[in-house]
């Protein structure tokens, strides 16, 4: 059944058509120029044709991003609204719909996630619509100590919020299908109680007014299946993360508006900070297990793209609404954490190659899959492009052209190299990469409050320049990382879906050295090779060579919190959320500091539950609330019980088993000293 409005669809295809036309036209022109440059007066050989093919693949994405960003900039300048997405009626009418705010957690810092949840809860209550929202902590935690800590934190949070606080806690015994399975489990248990759900990550923060606005938007648009509020990156202190936050804040709006421009009601889901119509999601977004082994078979890891595609296939619209505001997340603190996350995302996105051909998907959804895949595959393409370019240069040096052919001729065959054309092509590519950034800077400079709270014009310009140099130096290492991830995934290697590091810890020198030694050696090799071929070539490649040779110090210094703090004191890489923290962030920090100051008590979860009647009671309440059955009387359980009785060390799995075991839990109280 079609729920989407037909209002926007004609315009959407017009916009997409215009973007496609511009993208293909510029790529075609650039390819023709490169072809002329490469052909010279001797025509195109196999290597040159290969190089051209790689260039087309890479340039298409640059051109598309460029034109989308231009469109986004225009949309922001003219303050255009999304046609087809009806704004909610003005006023503060009491919400009649019911929304569940669900936060999926997995072995996280308990105080941090519960502080965030409390801040969001209070923010919604302050917005005057608390009655319309319920809050769920959906735990997939496997560490039994963290599990028990979460239960106690949940009860403490309920007590702090007062009687009637609707914050619930549920831990799954088996974390099948990771986060998507966690959300699906919630929907099966309680989904039908709610009209909508807002999915949050463990590091998500959202203002109450944003959540209310999203619920109103869904109310006003009965055909909307999902509304995504793009999150702003905040709350980090390392140099790496602060530069990422700064780049996201300055350039992010242009790119987000650009995406909204062409996606319209066939948008994408970013996995969190989005509101979803539960009925639509339950009907269409149950994810199957793909046949075959991971990384391409098994559970769908990057579930968000697939869920958005399934919603659209089901006739629901999916919207990206950048103007919502009040939506935040955190970035990985260091380059290596970022790369680790990229590895997971790379594996997940490449798995989409198994899904993108699915029957009935909207072409725009297929394009989302393709962009996701290309965001990683473009790295090995660039790598091949550079390698091939170097090879051609080396071949030309090692086997110089014969100026006089075998036949007698009066004039030599001078090699023709159109330097002006090559330069104009280079400038075009550079422009495509830099202009969207410049437009982002321009937008910030035109917005007085944002400009002032980002450190003022001079600091924004200086910060942008430094960030440009930094990201240029970072790009080669990231290209190699991503190429490795793509290769590993294609070879069948898998990476676990672990907890993201959310602490501002630095990378020790040996770790940075180990991670980047290959990059450094490659940088030295490429530099020497380029020098041997032609000093001019070395100059052209110097940013790449410098990025690789300096990879270790770049990774180490950028991971340092003190550098980040030092620059913040000098108001560099400042974002408005650092100058004046949003209320929800301020409150989350206050609560976190308060929780951290409290005594922690027994850290061994099982021991705590067995020795402390209150912890025991809360644990059993959490089990009863979700009607978790006791485990079967297996040999494993018997062994765990014996080990406990004999005071032998227990594995996390055995502890978890005992924490479900009625016999063990009822054998109370075991003295704390036991």
């Amino acid at each position, binding site marked *: 059944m079609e729920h989407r409005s037909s209002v926007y669809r004609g315009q959407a295809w017009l916009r997409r058509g215009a973007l496609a036309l511009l993208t293909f036209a510029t790529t075609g022109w650039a390819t023709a120029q490169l072809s002329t440059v490469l052909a010279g007066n001797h025509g195109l050989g196999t290597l040159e044709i290969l190089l051209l093919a790689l260039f087309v693949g890479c340039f298409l994405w640059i051109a598309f991003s460029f034109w989308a960003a231009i469109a986004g900039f225009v949309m922001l300048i003219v303050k255009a609204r999304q046609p087809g997405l009806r704004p909610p009626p003005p006023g503060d009418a009491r919400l009649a719909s019911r929304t569940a705010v669900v936060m999926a957690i997995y072995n996280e810092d308990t105080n941090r996630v519960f502080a965030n949840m409390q801040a969001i809860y209070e923010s919604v209550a302050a917005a005057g619509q608390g009655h319309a929202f*319920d809050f*769920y902590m959906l735990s997939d935690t496997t560490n039994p100590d963290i599990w028990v800590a979460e239960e106690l934190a949940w*009860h403490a949070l*309920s*007590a702090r919020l007062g*009687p*009637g*606080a*609707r*914050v*619930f806690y*549920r831990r799954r015994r088996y974390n099948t299908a990771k986060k998507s399975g966690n959300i*699906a489990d919630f*929907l*099966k*248990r*309680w*989904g*039908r*109680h709610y009209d909508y759900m807002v999915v949050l990550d463990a590091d998500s923060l959202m203002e109450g007014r944003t959540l209310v606005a999203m619920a109103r938007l869904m109310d006003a648009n009965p055909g909307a299946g999902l509304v995504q509020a793009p999150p702003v990156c905040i709350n980090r202190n390392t140099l790496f993360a602060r530069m990422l936050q700064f780049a996201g804040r300055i350039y992010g709006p242009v790119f987000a508006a650009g995406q909204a421009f062409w996606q319209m009601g066939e948008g994408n889901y970013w996995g969190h900070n989005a509101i979803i119509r539960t009925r639509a999601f*339950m*009907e*269409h*977004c*149950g*994810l*199957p*297990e*793909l046949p075959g082994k991971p990384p391409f078979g098994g559970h769908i890891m990057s579930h968000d793209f*697939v869920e958005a595609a*399934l919603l659209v296939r089901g006739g629901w619209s999916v919207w990206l609404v950048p103007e919502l505001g009040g939506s935040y997340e955190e970035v990985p603190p260091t380059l290596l954490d970022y790369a680790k996350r990229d590895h997971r995302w790379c594996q997940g996105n490449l798995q989409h190659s*198994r*899904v993108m*051909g*699915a*029957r*009935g998907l909207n072409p725009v959804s297929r394009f989302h899959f393709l962009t996701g895949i290309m965001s990683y595959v473009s790295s090995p393409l660039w790598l091949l492009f550079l390698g091939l370019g170097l090879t051609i240069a080396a071949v030309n040096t090692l086997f110089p052209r014969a100026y006089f052919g075998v036949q007698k001729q009066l004039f030599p065959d001078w090699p023709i190299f159109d330097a002006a054309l090559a330069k104009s092509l280079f400038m075009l590519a550079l422009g495509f990469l830099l202009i969207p950034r410049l437009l982002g800077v321009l937008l910030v400079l035109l917005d007085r409050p944002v400009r002032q709270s980002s450190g003022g014009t001079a600091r924004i310009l200086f910060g942008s320049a430094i960030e440009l140099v930094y990201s240029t130096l970072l790009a080669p290492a990231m290209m190699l990382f991503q190429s490795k991830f793509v290769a590993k995934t294609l070879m069948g290697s898998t990476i676990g879906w672990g907890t993201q590091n959310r602490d501002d810890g630095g990378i020790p020198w040996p770790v940075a050295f180990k991670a980047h030694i290959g990059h450094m050696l490659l940088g030295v090799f490429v530099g020497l090779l380029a020098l041997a071929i032609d000093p001019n070539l070395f100059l052209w490649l110097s940013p790449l060579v410098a990025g690789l040779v300096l990879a270790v110090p770049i990774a180490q210094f950028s991971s340092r919190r003190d550098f980040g703090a030092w620059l913040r004191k000098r108001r560099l890489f400042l974002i408005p959320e650092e100058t004046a923290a949003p209320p929800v962030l301020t409150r989350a920090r206050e609560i976190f500091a308060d929780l951290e100051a409290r005594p922690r008590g027994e850290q061994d979860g099982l021991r705590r539950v067995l020795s402390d*009647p*209150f912890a*025991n*009671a*809360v644990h*059993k*309440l959490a*089990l*009863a*609330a*979700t*009607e978790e059955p006791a485990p079967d009387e297996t040999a494993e359980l018997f062994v765990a019980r014996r080990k406990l009785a004999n005071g032998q060390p227990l594995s996390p799995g055995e502890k978890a088993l005992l924490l479900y075991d*009625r016999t063990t839990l*009822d*054998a*109370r*109280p075991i003295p704390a000293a036991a």
Partner: protein
Amino acid sequence: MDRLKFPNRSRTRPYSAEAERKFRSFFRGFGIEDDAAMKELIRRLGRLAPSGAAGDIDAAAGRWFADVLGRPESEAARALAAGRVAWLVAQAGRRWPLTLLSDTPPLAVTEALRRGLPALPPPLLGDPMPAAELERRRLPSFAARPLRARTA
């Protein structure tokens, strides 16, 4: 003489020593430390769940908490779990130990328990969430036909 006046309780009580041990353990989980109160509570529970089986103890106590907290009897298990937390939060084991399992608990206790009661999620629905079909698009019929069939 004394034996006639005060017969051995173990002969008259309807539960075994093992059951008594379980009752004691159960009440310790409610923070009951006072000996006299413990004896009285054991007597009450012995009347309600003479077998001493964990299931019977919980069912009896669950019914009592469901009644006190105004929950339907079908939610007795949840009421017991939530009620025990509320009981411990209110420190009722120290303040009002003898009100536990009493026929008419005082209003102050009922109110204290309801105040300390954490909110529980709504009833479980157990809805299905069918797996989406992600089969690849069918090839056009001419392409799907084996090459041999087409060339024959």
